């Protein structure tokens, strides 16, 4: 008889071409708060999806034992019936329904097919009291802040008689006060006998509430540390998270760095909906001609928000700060203005923000600089063909012709189309957001080579990436971003994964 509420043994999960999890084991003791740590893409969320039945039994190898019973969940309903509830980072509440309706969604307090509103609201207020939320249960979700919404999710979990609560990055979108409240609540629930698994990047939080921490790296369990036994430092956890060697996955590159080409000063951006929240705080950075500058930060640190707000105020509200191009202050209020000033931004999310998947390669390539191909508003399609065909060849885009529909290309080839589009726009500064996300190793190497070429042409390159080895492999200088603040500016010689991670997880300005 163990005291473990959960044992996951030898979990292996493969996606076409990728082994996301390999022989992962996890043991969680009853009544513990168990943290799971790992870099972006290490496999934490996949593991939780296996556990909660998002990936049903049979699609993975290995065994899940919950309360000493072998479990084979077919779907989320199955895991919830057993008492496992997962709360995702993106909350799954229906915004125009009330708190009470959301708590009992799919589990309505009904009599003879009609909702018993008195019971619904009464039971809801009891649950709300347990999570320390004193709003009226008939309040609409949309009127609540993210912090309170998180609490409603937990109340909903409690209504399902949860035994094991899984929280995926619960504080990533919260301000300090709400985060503190949430952490207290988790401790409080622990006292009531509810076991929690918490996935978090915030090491100080883990230190504050976790009993044990399991570190996952590259889809494998690295180690499980007992936070009580040994005095585990944040550095110790970081070492576990990043401890791997850089191999030769990056082309050699000798930079020739020139004058400063772009400088951003005091850049502050507020969240577009919750305008009291600063997503980017007084960020300042610069890029020189021929230089590849990295921006490292964990999910939710504000990397994409920083880039997109500079690029034509495409993200955020109440943006303040200054942008200087070659020493002259410029305004980049619209995307067209940003492009005109020679700034380009290649998105991390090419499917939703980067490409018209319905249209062909040619028209995507020419999309950001049609004016170069047109006179009096008419596109010279001959020239357009030649340009697109040129990129198809030089970028080695695997498509039969440039008339191929982009939606049918592979991720790597789509990414090359995005890059071609911005190369054709010929900017002076190119911001690349996760340029190699979701593409295979071979294509990655090609893209690194292209980035190097662009730098050699004298452009300033900014690379935003979740993968530290990638930044270490290609960048001349790396800024770290933590909770919207730039916490360090580290030259290539001094940059190590541990060093970066320290600043990426820095909570407050010293």
């Amino acid at each position: 008889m163990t005291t473990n509420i959960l044992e996951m043994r030898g979990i292996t999960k493969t996606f076409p071409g990728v082994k996301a999890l390999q022989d992962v084991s996890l043991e969680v003791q009853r009544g513990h708060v168990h943290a799971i740590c790992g870099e972006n893409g290490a496999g934490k969320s996949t593991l939780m999806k296996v556990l909660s039945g998002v990936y049903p039994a049979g699609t993975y190898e290995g065994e899940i034992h919950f309360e000493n019973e072998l479990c084979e969940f077919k779907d989320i309903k199955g895991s919830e019936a057993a008492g496992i509830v997962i709360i995702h980072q993106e909350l799954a509440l229906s915004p125009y329904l009330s708190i009470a309706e959301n708590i009992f969604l799919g589990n309505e307090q009904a009599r003879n097919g009609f909702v018993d509103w008195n019971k619904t609201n009464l039971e809801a207020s009891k649950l709300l009291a347990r999570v320390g939320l004193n709003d009226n249960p008939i309040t609409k979700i949309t009127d609540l802040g993210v912090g309170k919404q998180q609490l409603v999710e937990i109340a909903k979990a409690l209504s399902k008689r949860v035994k094991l609560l899984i929280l995926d990055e619960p504080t990533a979108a919260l301000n300090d006060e709400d985060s503190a409240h949430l952490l207290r609540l988790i401790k409080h629930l622990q006292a009531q006998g509810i076991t929690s698994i918490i996935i978090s990047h915030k090491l100080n939080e883990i230190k504050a509430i976790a009993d044990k921490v399991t570190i996952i790296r590259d889809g494998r369990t690295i180690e499980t540390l007992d936070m009580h036994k040994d005095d585990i430092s944040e550095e110790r956890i970081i070492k576990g998270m990043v401890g791997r060697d850089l191999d030769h996955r990056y082309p050699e590159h000798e930079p020739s760095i020139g004058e400063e080409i772009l400088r951003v000063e005091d850049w502050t951006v507020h969240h577009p909906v919750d305008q009291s929240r600063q997503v980017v705080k007084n960020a300042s950075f610069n890029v020189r001609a021929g230089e590849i500058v990295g921006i490292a930060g964990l999910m939710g640190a504000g990397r994409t928000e920083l880039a997109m707000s500079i690029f034509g105020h495409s993200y955020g509200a109440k943006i303040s700060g200054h942008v200087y191009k070659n020493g002259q202050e410029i305004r980049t209020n619209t995307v067209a203005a940003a492009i005109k000033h020679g700034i380009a931004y290649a998105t991390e999310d090419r499917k939703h923000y980067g490409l018209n998947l319905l249209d062909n390669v040619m028209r995507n390539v020419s999309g950001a600089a049609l004016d170069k191909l047109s006179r009096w508003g008419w596109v010279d399609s001959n020239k357009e063909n030649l340009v697109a065909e040129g990129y198809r060849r030089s970028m080695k885009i695997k498509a039969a012709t440039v008339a191929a529909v982009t939606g049918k290309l592979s991720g790597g080839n789509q990414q090359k189309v995005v890059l071609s589009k911005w190369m054709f726009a010929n900017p002076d500064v190119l911001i690349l957001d996760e340029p190699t996300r979701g593409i295979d190793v071979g294509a990655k190497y090609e893209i690194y080579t292209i980035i190097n070429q662009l730098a050699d042409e004298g452009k300033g390159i900014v690379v935003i990436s979740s993968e530290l080895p990638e930044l270490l492999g290609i960048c001349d200088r790396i800024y770290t971003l933590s909770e919207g603040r730039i916490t360090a500016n580290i030259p290539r010689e001094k940059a190590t994964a541990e060093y970066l991670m320290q600043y990426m997880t820095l909570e407050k300005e010293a």
Partner: protein
Amino acid sequence: MFALRSALHYLAGQLRQVGLFIALIVIILFFQVSTNGITLAPINVSNLIVQNSYILILAIGMVMVIIAGHIDLSVGSVVAFVGAMSGVMITQWGVPWWLAIILCLAIGALVGMWQGFWIAYFGIPAFIVTLAGMLTFRGLTQIALQNQQISPFPDEFRSLGSGFLPDLGGGTSALEPLTMIIGIVATIALVVQDLRQRAARRKHNLEDEPFAWFVCKMVFTALLILLITYLLAGYRGTPIVLIVLGLLTVAYSAVMANSVWGRHIYAIGGNRFAAELSGVKVKRVTFTLFVNMGVLAALAGLVFTAQLNLANPKAGDGFELDAIAAVFIGGAAVTGGIGTVMGALIGGLIIGILNNGMSILGVGTEYQQLIKGLVLLAAVAFDVFNKRRAGGSNGSGRQRRKTTPRSAPSEAKTRTPVASA
């Protein structure tokens, strides 16, 4: 053998286009047989063109609106309003007919600016704005006409709707010469243009259309034009509105294929966010799109009024639905990004021939409605089926997206199965 298989493979990929053509031919043949040859009689072909011209003009504007991912429900009311204003101007204010035409087109532009403003700059969905427009312009029509009909109109004005180009043969020749000349010139121009385009595409290695299919298509289109020419020349010659329609077709096909504006319309409909992040001025393009729709609706209103020789408070009722149906039968995607001017015109012709043929056969309007409804449903169902069969290369991405513009990009990140931990 291999050539045949690759040709079949190609045709399977073009199922929608081919299907549309075949549907048109089957419908024409069906009515030709069942009406004992009345459908393709010279007088009926002439009527078909004249009586569907305003729907086809609306369909051109509508397909552009729908490609951009919007809709316009107000065009029927705008048709009526512009007709009413032309009547008031010409018969009550004594404005010369040519000036009235110009002023009416300007009214159409103003209508488009009004609706475009609310849609593009204020962010109200086009469905709502144009639904409101449908009511307001119907109301304005009735106010302008004081609920009376206005008639008659001067002959010059009427010729826009029901006039013919002058008969060069002096009414003596069996085939009207001017019509024959126009038809033959148009056919030659079309063939030359097709060949040139194919040559250019071949030069850039873009050609994937089998030569046999290319020839079939070209010969078929050329024969179709010549047939129509022959039939028209055997009656009263070329309707003036056909010239207008022909010019609009050529101009707007070119605009949608080759102008920066047209490209931006496709880009917005295909992926609004990507368009915005590529520097497309989404608001401005949307605004001008509705101005354009307003002008085309005004033109349709002028043609319709001229044809009936009557400004009527009930005019244009339901035209928006015919135009929208034409666009979807013509293969446009409900979600935007896909569609062609040519497709919308063929869709409009299919509806027109259904109307015409069923009327000749004496089918009651109740059955006409029923059948048109089923044809629309079948056409779109065919599209959906076709897309699913092709594997829906972009389906999942588009369906999952619910994010509003400018929401947090990293929070709204789609969670790829592999790597989001």
